[in-house]
């Protein structure tokens, strides 16, 4: 699954609600405004009718139809409606037409009632009884008949106007909220950057994070990292001590035979019972064996003087590739084939030391090869296997342990004790094994086996 940033996650999680809330809020607000507008308009008609009631009552009482007509016309013009005054079911005055005067009033059919008003097919009828100031009934009513469509048009206009404004305000608020969320998540970004920096070794001390919990996490991660590094150092130190002890033990073990041989040669050389040739041969061997012992001791000393290993879980393929490139840069007519099962294989190792071991094996391979050296990396169970094989004549398998112990005669010049024994030492110092096999190419094949976990 593709991972996304926390902000994107929060944003995408809130996005549907952002639209839905904006839409619902806009509909509710605009609906409220539209209803208020309609109610206000119709209420205005009713209030106007009620306000006129005492005056109309006077006019009705005095039968002053001309004045009634003037008033109704004036009201009708102001309210953009038709106004009819009805007494005992008959039209007393009307702003509509003189024809209906003194005729029975035909009230428009009511479809439904709302806000105490009658809604017809094409009109809204507001009715108010005309009463004298003492609330005495005159059996007279005033009807304000407003055209439905214009009344609703203004309401619909208000609805859409308010809807558009509130919707955009809601969206704008949501946008601002998005920015606020982004800003609020900055400490998380800071924490993320810091942790990433710790992993990438770009560990730069930054300002404290303002959010207390995040700052605690940061401190915890940082202190954990430091503790881990310390532990690693201690582990390396302890391992180095152990390796040193093992090296001494191995040196002692390795020197056991040469020293025994030296002792034997010295005894043979001084043994007068031996023939001269044998004694002479033994005498000749003594300095050679002494040199070998000295060489082994020197090599062991040099290995112990190396920097303590820094094991890091890194891509071993990169290390091998670096070694190949290093050898290729020296110029060789023989081809080096690389065959890696995957692009990355993380194994705890010291890249400088391991590269040195690889380079050593490659140089040996190139020297022995007729035309081709093959480097391959694979993972078998919990081991990383690095093989350096060549198509040369191969080695005497009986002598290989001697070479690995640094006792064999290498044909290489200027090896300075960095031959197979050195390689073997590096591999062993990584807790691994160096194994010799016959190569399927016909020559030698050295296999470095390192534990992945």
């Amino acid at each position, binding site marked *: 699954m593709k991972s996304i940033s926390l902000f994107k996650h929060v944003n995408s999680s809130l996005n549907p609600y952002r639209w839905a809330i904006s839409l619902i809020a806009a509909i509710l607000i605009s609906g409220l405004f539209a209803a208020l507008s309609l109610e206000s308009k119709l209420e205005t008609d009713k209030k106007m009718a009620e306000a006129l009631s005492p005056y109309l009552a006077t006019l009705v009482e*005095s039968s*002053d*139809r001309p004045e009634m007509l003037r008033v109704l016309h004036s009201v009708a013009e102001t309210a953009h409606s038709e106004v009819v005054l009805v007494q005992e079911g008959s039209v007393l005055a009307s702003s509509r037409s*003189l*024809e209906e005067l*003194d005729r029975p009033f035909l009230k428009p059919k009511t479809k439904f009632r709302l806000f105490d008003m009658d809604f017809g097919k094409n009109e809204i009828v507001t009715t108010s009884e005309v009463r004298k100031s003492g609330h005495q009934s005159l059996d007279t009513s005033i009807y304000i008949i407003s055209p439905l469509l214009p009344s609703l048009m203004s309401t619909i206009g208000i609805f859409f106007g308010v809807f558009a404004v509130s919707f955009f305000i809601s969206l704008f608020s949501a946008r601002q909220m998005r920015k606020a969320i982004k800003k609020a998540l900055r400490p998380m970004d800071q924490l993320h950057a810091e942790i990433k920096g710790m992993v990438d070794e770009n560990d730069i001390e930054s300002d404290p994070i303002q959010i207390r919990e995040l700052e605690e996490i940061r401190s915890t991660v940082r202190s954990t990292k430091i503790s881990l590094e310390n532990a690693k150092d201690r582990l390396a130190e302890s391992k180095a001590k152990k390796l040193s002890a093992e090296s001494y033990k191995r040196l002692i073990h390795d020197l056991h035979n040469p020293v025994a041989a030296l002792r034997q040669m010295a005894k043979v050389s001084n043994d007068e019972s031996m023939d001269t040739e044998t004694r002479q041969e033994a005498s000749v061997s003594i300095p050679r064996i002494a040199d070998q012992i000295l060489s082994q001791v020197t090599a062991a000393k040099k290995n112990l003087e190396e920097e303590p290993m820094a094991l890091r879980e890194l891509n071993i393929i990169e290390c091998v590739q670096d070694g190949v490139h290093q050898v290729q840069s020296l110029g060789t007519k023989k081809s080096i084939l690389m065959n890696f099962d995957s692009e990355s294989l993380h194994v705890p190792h010291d890249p400088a030391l391991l590269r040195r071991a690889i380079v050593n094996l490659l140089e040996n391979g190139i020297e022995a090869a007729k035309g081709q050296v093959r480097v391959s990396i694979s993972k078998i169970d919990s081991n990383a296997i690095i093989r350096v094989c060549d198509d040369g004549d191969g080695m005497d398998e009986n002598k290989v342990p001697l070479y690995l112990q640094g006792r064999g005669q290498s044909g290489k010049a200027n090896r300075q004790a960095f031959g197979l024994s050195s390689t073997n030492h590096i591999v062993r110092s990584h807790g691994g094994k160096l194994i010799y096999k016959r190569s399927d190419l016909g020559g030698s094949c050295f296999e470095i086996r390192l534990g992945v976990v």
Partner: protein
Amino acid sequence: MIFGGRLLSIIVSIGFLIQLPSYAQNGSPTYVKAIYSLPISFDPIKMNDTASLVVGNLIYDGLLKFSPSLKIEGALAKSWSTSKDGKVLTFKLKPNIFFHSGESITAADVEASLKRALSNKSTVRKFYDSIKKIRALDDKTIEIELNYPFPPFLSVLAGATAKVLPKSKLTDPKFFVNPIGSGPFRFSSLDKNKKEIFLEAFPKYYSGKPKIDRMILKETTEGEALRLARIGEINDLANWPLTEEDSIFKIGQKISSPVASTWIIGLNTLQTPFNNLQVRQLFKSNIPVDEFRMRFYPDSIKANGYVPNGLPGSQVKADLEVTNVRPPKSKVTIVIPSELARAEEMKKMIEKAMTDKGWNIEVNLMAWNQLMDGYAKKSHQAFLVAMNMDYPDADFLLKNFESDNSDNFSGLKSKELDNLLKKSRATQDRKLREEYYKSALKLTEESAVTVNLFHPRANYWVSKCVQNFRPNILSDVYIDYAKVSLSFNCPSKKVVQR
């Protein structure tokens, strides 16, 4: 104002049909309006009848006018104001207003016209007697000072007699032969023989040229008018308030409206036996009012009193208890306009009903002009007329009974009534004025000088090609013909093509 009803004459004016082509030969349809009578006068201050007022309102304009719903609007006046005490009214005239002659209308013309209305030769002086002084402040400003704050005065100025005439032409004795006004139509000609008046749209009318280019006012009887309307040669029968069920409405538009009018039988107290109050009261209570209304004008409105429905005082009625009075033996004559379509029926019905109740009664059918003549001379004992209102205030009708009013058809003299009317004019308190009106009307009803028959409901007929015809609640006099138009496929083209 007094309205006479249907005309009986069915003489077809061939001349009318011949005249039209020469008048209307240049294209657009001519609007033909039938009228029951040619105007008795073209002089606004002598217009005391509906026939004259209908024509006057087409030719002349005043400072103010009534909207169809009786709202007072500026006509020649752009604006006006009233002083705090209600006694001084100041009017500003509109710019660019002209008489038909092309002269600009000034405040001096207004001053001269209103002063004429106040003169002794004015038969409508009674409407203007609240005026104390009139003066033109400048070319466009006129100030009218009143003797008392008379709230209905703006209605008076919006009425059909408060018209503005050109001052410079008023000295011409023949001015009213070819009258000049500023109304929507200008006078073109009058054919007295053929009883037709020809009008043309006035292009410089203050609210724009009327939509009708030409109009013919054709005097005819109701029957003939209906016949011509049926064959598409008349566009407008608004001069007759037809009954709702009339078959003519099957072929035209029916525009219905109440009108501020009361049909009455007026009783003359100057003539015996109506100089006796109890006789008048008995007569009033014996006339079969409901039967008459239901038989002849079933869609009209029952009259409670003298004042039409919907006006202050309309609910005032007399509770007459006439006991121990018998009808007089002397003959009582009621005159009714012979032009009324069912005048004979009316005569028979009234005579029978009253004879049955012991009255020696005769109903005479009389031509409208004769009836009006007797009305003016107060020679009739009783007469059937319709009282139309020039302005929507009970004061208009109550004036008819003021002692010093020369137009007091009843000859009634009541100091109490006179005082009540004076008080009503002097107050700006609407409620108080209403109370005075009620008291005055109560007095009038108890004086039994009118038998209130009904308040008509006008059912105007106009042809289907007439557009924007809007009735006026006062009467057909105030219909705004400047807005009326004809559609192009108007049947009156038949008239044009003859």
